[in-house]
C-alpha cells in the first residue's frame, strides 16, 4: 500500500479536474487572444472557470482575480509592487509580516530589507499564531502593507484573519494574505474578511501545478509584475494557460463543494490518526484541533530525528514531510518549530502529516500501524531517547 500524507506540499489532481482540462490541449488549443475561432472557442470555458473562481472565494464582480503561475508569483507580485508603488515612489517605508510565512513572502520581505525597507516580523505564540495586539502596536503611519498568511503550511494553524483585516481597515493599511493552505480546506470569503490581496494556488486543492491566482479588491491599483501584453486586463501579461485555468476553476468548484466533507470526514480521519499517535508516549502536536485546518498534524516524535522517520515511512510506502534538519538541502531545523519557541531538541523531531479528501480510512489505519512500528524501531536506535535523564515538560 502507498499512502500519500503530504497534501500540504501538493495534491493529486482530481480526475474530474483532469477530464475538464483534456480538450484544451489538442482540440481547442488556440490562443484565446486571437480573433479567429481557434482562439475564441475556449472563451466559454475560460469564463466558466472565472465564475468558479469568483464564486469559490465569494468575490464581487468589481474585484479582480488575476491568474498567475502560482502563489509564489502572486506573493512576490504584491510585495514587490507595493514596494514600487508605495515605498520607492511614495512616502511609506514599512511592511509587517510574521515569522512563519512561506518563503515566498518571507524571502521577498528579506529582499526588500536589503533595499532599505523596514520589515517587522511578528512573533508567534507556542501555538504558532501571531497576536493581534502585536500587530496593532507594529502598525505606523508609514506602514505600506501587512502580509499575514491565512493558515500555516507546517502547523495548519488558522490565523485571526478577520480581526487582522478589521485592524488594517481601521488603520488604513493594505492587507495581503497568503491563503494557499486555506483555500479548499476551510471557507474563504472575501466579503466577510477585509483583504485587499489574497494569493492561492491550484495544486493545493486538487488542481494542476503551475497555476494560481491573486485576488485584488475592487480595482485596487498595483503595478504589474509581468509586463508585455494586455492579458488579464493589463494586470498580468503572458498567454493564458487555458487548460490549467479551466482545471483550476473546476478544482475550486469541487473544493468548495467538498468543504463540509473536509470539515467532517477529513477532520475525522485526521483526528483518528492524531489520537492514535498521541497514544504513543512522548508525542506532541502543535496547536489545538479546532484552531487548525482539518487536514494537518505537525507532531514532534521525541528522540527521533525527522529525516530518519521520513525514511522509515517511505520504506513502507508512506509519503510525509518535515521541514527539519537533514531533510532539506539547507540542513536546518524546522523554522516553524523554532518560531513557536519549541525546545531546540524538538525542532529536529517534527513530522508533518497532511491528509486530503482522497485519503481513506484504510490508509489511515495502515499509516497508524507503520508509524507506531517506525517509532519503536527508531527509538531503539536512538541514543537520546533511552538515556534522556528526564523527560521534557513540554512547552507546546
Amino acid at each position, binding site marked *: 500500500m502507498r499512502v500519500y500524507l503530504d497534501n500540504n506540499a501538493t495534491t493529486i489532481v482530481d480526475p474530474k479536474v483532469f477530464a475538464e482540462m483534456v480538450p484544451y490541449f489538442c482540440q481547442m488549443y488556440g490562443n484565446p487572444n486571437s480573433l479567429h475561432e481557434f482562439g475564441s472557442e475556449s472563451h466559454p470555458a475560460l469564463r466558466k472557470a472565472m465564475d468558479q473562481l469568483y464564486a469559490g472565494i465569494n468575490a464581487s464582480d468589481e474585484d479582480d482575480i488575476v491568474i498567475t503561475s502560482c502563489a509564489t508569483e502572486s506573493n512576490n507580485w504584491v510585495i514587490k509592487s507595493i514596494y514600487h508603488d508605495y515605498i520607492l515612489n511614495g512616502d511609506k517605508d514599512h511592511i509587517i509580516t510574521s515569522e512563519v510565512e512561506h518563503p515566498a513572502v518571507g524571502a521577498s520581505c528579506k529582499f526588500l530589507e536589503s533595499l532599505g525597507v523596514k520589515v517587522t516580523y511578528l512573533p508567534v505564540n507556542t501555538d504558532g499564531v501571531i497576536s493581534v495586539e502585536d500587530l496593532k502596536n507594529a502598525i505606523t503611519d508609514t506602514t505600506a502593507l501587512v502580509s499575514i498568511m491565512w493558515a500555516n503550511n507546517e502547523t495548519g494553524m488558522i490565523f485571526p484573519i478577520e480581526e487582522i483585516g478589521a485592524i488594517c481597515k481601521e488603520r488604513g493599511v493594505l492587507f495581503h494574505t497568503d491563503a494557499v493552505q486555506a483555500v479548499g480546506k476551510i471557507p474563504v470569503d472575501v466579503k466577510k474578511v477585509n483583504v485587499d490581496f489574497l494569493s492561492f494556488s491550484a495544486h493545493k486543492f486538487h488542481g494542476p501545478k503551475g497555476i494560481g491566482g491573486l485576488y485584488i479588491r475592487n480595482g485596487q491599483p498595483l503595478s504589474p509584475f509581468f509586463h508585455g501584453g494586455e492579458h488579464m486586463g493589463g494586470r498580468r501579461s503572458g498567454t493564458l494557460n487555458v487548460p490549467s485555468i479551466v482545471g483550476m476553476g473546476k478544482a475550486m468548484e469541487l473544493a468548495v463543494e467538498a468543504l463540509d466533507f473536509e470539515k467532517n470526514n477529513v477532520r475525522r480521519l485526521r483526528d483518528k490518526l492524531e489520537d492514535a499517535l498521541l497514544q504513543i508516549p512522548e508525542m506532541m502536536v502543535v496547536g489545538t484541533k479546532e484552531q487548525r485546518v482539518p487536514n494537518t498534524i505537525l507532531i514532534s516524535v521525541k528522540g527521533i530525528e525527522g529525516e530518519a522517520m521520513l*525514511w522509515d515511512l517511505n520504506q513502507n510506502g508512506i509519503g510525509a514531510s518535515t521541514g527539519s534538519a*537533514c531533510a532539506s538541502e539547507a540542513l536546518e*531545523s524546522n523554522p516553524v518549530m523554532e518560531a513557536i519557541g519549541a525546545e531546540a531538541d524538538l525542532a529536529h*523531531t517534527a513530522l508533518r502529516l497532511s491528509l486530503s479528501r482522497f485519503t481513506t480510512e484504510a490508509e489511515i489505519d495502515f499509516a497508524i500501524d507503520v508509524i507506531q512500528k517506525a517509532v519503536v524501531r527508531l527509538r*531503539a536506535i536512538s*541514543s537520546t531517547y533511552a538515556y534522556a535523564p528526564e523527560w521534557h515538560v513540554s512547552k507546546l
Partner: protein
Amino acid sequence: MAKNSLIGGSIWEEYSQKVQDLMNHPQNMGELTEEDAKNMGGKLIIADFGAESCGDAVRLYWIVDEATEVIKAAKFKSFGCGTAIASSDTMAELCIGKTVSEAVKITNIDVEKAMRDTPDVPAVPPQKMHCSVMAYDVIKAAAASYKGVDAASFEDDIIVCECARVSLGTIKEVIKINNLKTVEEITNYTKAGAFCKSCIKPGGHEAREYYLVDILRDTRAEMEHDHLLAISNSKIEGSNTVNFDDLTIVKKFQQIEAVIDENIRPMLVMDGGNLEILDIKEGGDGMSDVYIRYLGACSGCASSSTGTLFAIEAVLQEKLSKNIRILPV
C-alpha cells in the same frame, strides 16, 4: 547553477546501497553492559558525542581488553538521520579488532569510504559528509575516556574542515606554496569546504571557529607582509632575501632610489648638485642599465663622467648588485 542543479533531486537518491541497507538494518546497533564486559574479560567504555538540539547525537560502546588495548566489541546508538545511523554503524564495525590507538586514527573519510558501493562513487552526497564526522568524534571521546585523557590530545592540529579533515596548518601551507587567491582554489587543492560547506563562511550548517574566507584573507595578508618585509630588509641591509636582479623594474627603481637617497644624494647636494634616475633597462647581457641625469652644479662638472660616476656605480654595486651599470645622459 547548471543543468544538473536546476531541478534538484532527492538526496536519498545519492545514498549508496550499503548506506541504505545499514539504515534499514544496522548491524552494530545496541548497547554493551558491565555484564558483557565481565563475560568478555574487558573494560566497558561508553562515550557520547553531539546533542539532540544540533540534530545529531551518537553514543558508542566499547569493550576493551586492557592487556592488549584491543577493542573486542563495539555497539552504537544514534539520534540522527539515516546516514548518521549508517555512519555510526560503520564506525562501530571499523573499531572492532583494532587497538584503541589504531581506532583513534579512523577518520570520517574512512567511514564514508567503507560505505561506498564502488570505490569511485561517494556513499553519501556532500551535504551528508558531516554525519560521518560524528563517528570520528565519538571514537576520540571513547579513546579519551579509556586512556583518561582529554579528547583534544588526539588532535595534533586545528581542524578547519571536519568533513574532509583538513587542518589549519595544511590550508595555510597550501595557500602559500601555491599562491592561492580564492576559496574555490583552496577547496580544489584540499577538499576543505567541499562537503557541508559550514567552514567556508559564517552562517552555514554549524558555527565554526575558523572559516576559509578568514584564513585566506589572513594568510594573503601574511604573505603580503612577508613580501614587503623581505623587500624592506633588502633595501635597508642589502640582504639577499630577494635578489636584486630578480626584481621587477619598478622594485629595482625603488631600491636604487633608496640607496641614492641615503648614500649619494647628500654628497651631491652639499656641492650644489643632484641627479635623477630617468630609466632602468635590462642590458641584455645580464646588466641593469640605469640612465641618470645630473642636475644643478653636477651637470657639466668634469668628474661627473669619471670619479663621481664610478663612485655612484660602486656604491650601487656594493649595496644592491654587481650587475648595475650607470649611464649618464
